[in-house]
């Protein structure tokens, strides 16, 4: 079976290699970018207004990590098309990411970065 696509039709991405669902329309990308911009603003506000109840005290770091993760996975999911491509690509990328995360969390633990008495690391 063959297919011909006219100039202004969006490409049916089932025909594209690797894609298992049609890619988003441009409007979706624009809304995603706006969402990312808002998250960035919240990140900066969290640092500039540390006494705001939502992220005051010990909550600041977890909130910043959460916002960072939201931005990271939104870009990977929508802009990098992991949402639409074959799962093998998601596995390939997340394998590397998880391996890196595991290795370096272990390394930071070994250097006692998470503990209050990490002065020995800092002065070594």
């Amino acid at each position: 079976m063959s297919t011909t696509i006219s100039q202004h039709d969006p490409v049916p991405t089932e025909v594209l290699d690797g894609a298992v669902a049609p890619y988003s329309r441009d409007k979706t990308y624009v809304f995603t970018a706006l969402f990312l911009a808002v998250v960035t603003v919240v990140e900066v506000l969290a640092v500039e207004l540390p006494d705001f109840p939502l992220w005051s005290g010990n909550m600041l770091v977890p909130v910043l990590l959460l916002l960072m993760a939201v931005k990271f996975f939104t870009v990977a999911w929508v802009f990098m098309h992991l949402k639409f491509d074959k799962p093998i690509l998601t596995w390939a990328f997340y394998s590397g990411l998880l391996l890196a995360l595991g290795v370096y969390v272990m390394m930071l633990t070994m250097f006692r970065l998470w503990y209050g008495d990490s002065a020995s690391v800092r002065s070594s």
Partner: protein
Amino acid sequence: MSHPTVTEADAHATGAHIEHDTNTGISNTKLAMWLFLASECLLFGGLITTYLLYKTPLEGPSGKDLYDIPFTSASSFVLLMSSLTMVLAVSAIERGDHHRMRVWLGATGLLGATFIAGQIYEFTAFYREGLGFTTSRFSSAFYTLTGFHGVHVTVGIIMLVSLVFLSVRGKLPEHRSETVEVVGLYWHFVDVVWILIFGIVYLIP
């Protein structure tokens, strides 16, 4: 569901794509780029970890004394928006709209260049404040991490400019839109790495 294939003649039709004859059904180029990006996670993971270990300087100024959060936030916003223009370029080539693709690629390159200009300005300001590459272990870790990222952005800009030239010379037909998509993957990765660097280096106290 069986995917429709594209005949040799149709492959030259505007917007047509050839399904690759590989075990995975994914082109080797695209799979290779994803595997490369996975390996890059280890590279940047190592650099970020080193920074975290050395972020408290024994001598010289610290990051807290130097960082200009509003300025870096603006730079981050510029790089974030370059991801939007990049994905719009991919979308345009898949519609067969070469003119818009070139416009979006050009915009992406310009936003990337703006980010690099901001980084050069920041490095210069830090140097004038007394933070050289060898001033402290903090400064070495900081410049290595952000410098490596800057080199990645610069390589991305070179790829974008190359794509524009290829397109102008008619060597980037729609059935090769995957080339733009693969460069886009690299560009988005550079963006997600900056999302991590911005959070971990600049924002988290």
